[in-house]
């Protein structure tokens, strides 16, 4: 199967096999006008199988969202057909306005100007808590929900 190399854009690599469509929706890639290739079940030495997303435009991608939804992916930034940057994404230590606190007693759910900030409290359990009230983050959104 042949998919053209991109000239200027982003390649999200090492996505857990089967998760690419989930990321596609959550990152809002369905709203883009440019070419986006979602490649599933690509043979991988490291992972056995993996998914890849190629975006043929240098969009401003939200790495916090990416790391939260799919930690351990690799993001390659392509310019003039050359890779100019490569970043290994891990769970972000904090999330700003990515998820919202659901605690009705929290100041962030009362005053709309306040940013919703969650910090990573336990890396092993991937546990995030609101910095204002310590309420646990809601479960990660399902694949059909946009953040």
């Amino acid at each position, binding site marked *: 199967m042949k998919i053209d190399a991109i000239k200027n854009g982003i390649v999200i690599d090492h996505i857990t096999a089967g998760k690419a469509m989930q990321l596609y929706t959550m990152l809002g890639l369905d709203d883009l006008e440019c070419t986006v290739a979602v490649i599933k079940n690509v043979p991988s030495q490291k992972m056995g199988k993996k998914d890849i997303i190629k975006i043929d435009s240098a969009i401003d991608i939200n790495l916090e969202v990416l790391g939260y939804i799919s930690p351990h992916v690799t993001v390659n930034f392509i310019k003039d057909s050359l890779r100019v940057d490569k970043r290994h994404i891990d769970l972000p230590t904090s999330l700003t306005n990515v998820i919202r606190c659901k*605690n009705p007693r929290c100041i962030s759910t009362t005053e709309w100007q306040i940013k919703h900030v969650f910090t990573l*409290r336990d890396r092993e359990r991937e546990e995030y808590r609101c910095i204002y009230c*310590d309420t646990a983050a809601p479960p990660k959104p399902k694949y059909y929900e946009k953040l």
Partner: protein
Amino acid sequence: MRNLIDIMDLSVAEIDRLITLADDIMRTPDKYRAACQGKILATLFFEPSTRTRLSFESAMLGLGGSCLGFAEANASSAVKGESVADTAAVVSGYADLMVMRHPKEGSPLVAAAAATIPVINAGDGGHYHPTQTLTDLMTIHYEKGRFDNLTVGLCGDLKFGRTVHSLIAALSRYSGVRFVLISPEELKLPSFVKQQYIKDRRRAYTQSTTLEPVIGELDILYMTRVQKERFFNEEDYLRLKDSYILTTDKMKLAKSDTIVMHPLPRVNEIDTAVDADPRACYFRQARYGRFIRMALIMKLLEVSL
């Protein structure tokens, strides 16, 4: 500039120094009568409070400083829809230090980000109440003489009881502390508090739904009130409010040197007949609160003699 939002903002060494200073103030109050002369403390109480607000005001007045503020949200611009951040920014121009109580969790943290003066959290909903914890620690220091190797029973509302969460966090830093958690199922300690401060720190604990079988093991019995204002549903409050009432009969099962603490106000969870028992130290505890708050004010204003 330092704020006190969570008791864990203070190290064990800093707490020790505060207690040492509070102790000196308590013994020689005249020495400190003008320590904060010319300084102004703003007390922003968006929720009713007697002890905390008055003890802060009494503390500041005892140091020669002045106080201004309000005692309920209706007396502030909050009723006009002013944000916590804006209130904090404005008050920064009128005072040197700010104490805030607010029903919404995290409000003092928001205030601290907007303020240009130190902010003290005097209780944010069911979340934190660090100066009550300082008061509790000073009480334990005076009444028990140590923080380590204590069996501490916490009884009543462990779910919404903010003083309980902060006290567990503070005591979990001392070795040999064992917790006995006494509450009805509906008001059990939140799992993240248990995980973070008891399990992760490998502290021993047991849980009980009744007081009588465990009271004999305790060095400290920390009673709490089931707080009506934390419930959305009045039926739940009425069902649980009388869960644990400490009586002189139950005190007969306690050790001779067990101390009974309570952050106050009390409703009916401690029978007034218990007050005469020398092991009941909640009124002494309230008195200690003034001196530890004096020490905290001096620390945050960076005042020394």
